[in-house]
């Protein structure tokens, strides 16, 4: 039953070529489709997530859609989501702050944030995020007031999670483009919060 464990010992380039060949032969995904997916993955960056956040801050209807169905909100901004795990969005409020981790591996909302930062995959981050999250936030320069509740979201299964951070004070009349420039990768993981420079 577990005889296919042997594939784990196969040299990676040979294994990749075999898998690509099988995907094409079985009509699951051809070379063009795979190339398209690699291009979309390479093109994704935190700027996409930041644009979603800025739009949520300025358009209540988009905010409601984003919180209800992150995948549809991303698609509404022409971000390719087909075939990808569902995107969940965690809303920070004045009373609640979210921190995302994947303790089992490195699940990350790549479609909207691009490749994860190197530390997101580290054993130290993954262990500390659930064991000492406030201490971890302090190391990122983020001091959470005692009255703000911290919720750690361990991304263990089929969803990918991003944080919708709190809009900083003093940005009331800013257009979405200027707001988006305030939002960085760590703000959408929850290790930092957007700040007006």
């Amino acid at each position: 039953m577990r005889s296919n464990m042997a594939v784990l010992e196969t040299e990676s380039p040979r294994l990749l070529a075999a898998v690509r060949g099988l995907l094409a032969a079985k009509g699951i995904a051809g070379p063009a489709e795979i190339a398209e997916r690699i291009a979309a993955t390479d093109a994704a960056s935190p700027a996409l997530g930041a644009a979603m956040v800025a739009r949520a801050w300025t358009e209540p209807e988009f905010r409601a859609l984003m919180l209800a169905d992150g995948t549809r909100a991303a698609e509404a901004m022409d971000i390719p989501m087909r075939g990808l795990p569902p995107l969940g969005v965690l809303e920070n409020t004045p009373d609640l702050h979210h921190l995302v981790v994947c303790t089992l591996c490195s699940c990350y909302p790549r479609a909207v944030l691009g490749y994860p930062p190197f530390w997101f995959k580290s054993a130290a981050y993954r262990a500390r995020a659930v064991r000492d999250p406030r201490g971890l936030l302090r190391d990122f320069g983020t001091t959470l007031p005692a009255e703000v509740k911290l919720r750690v979201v361990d991304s263990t299964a089929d969803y990918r999670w991003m944080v919708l951070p709190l809009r900083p004070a003093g940005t009331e009349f800013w257009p979405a483009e200027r707001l988006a420039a305030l939002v960085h990768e760590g703000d959408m993981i929850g290790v930092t919060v957007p700040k007006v420079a």
Partner: protein
Amino acid sequence: MLAPGTAVRVRDDWPETRGPCHIRTPWYLRGHRGTVVRHLGDYPNPEDLAFSLPAATLALYHVRFPLAAIWPDAVGTDDLVVELYETWLEVAP
């Protein structure tokens, strides 16, 4: 289907001691009590998918655990929310 607010316990089971397996339930939660936040949808069981075996569709839940219930030195009301499949949850009395 487990309703939001249902008290559950993560099964104190260790399949990794019985041979090769693929598990999406973290070690640090086995045997701990939590509360169902909501049903996230139904997905094929990754424990079977990983070995290209026929996979039953399972309910996936967001389950909340107070950090203070998991770690002996944790204080305050901070908590943790984790995706867990129905087969790992038992309704806690």
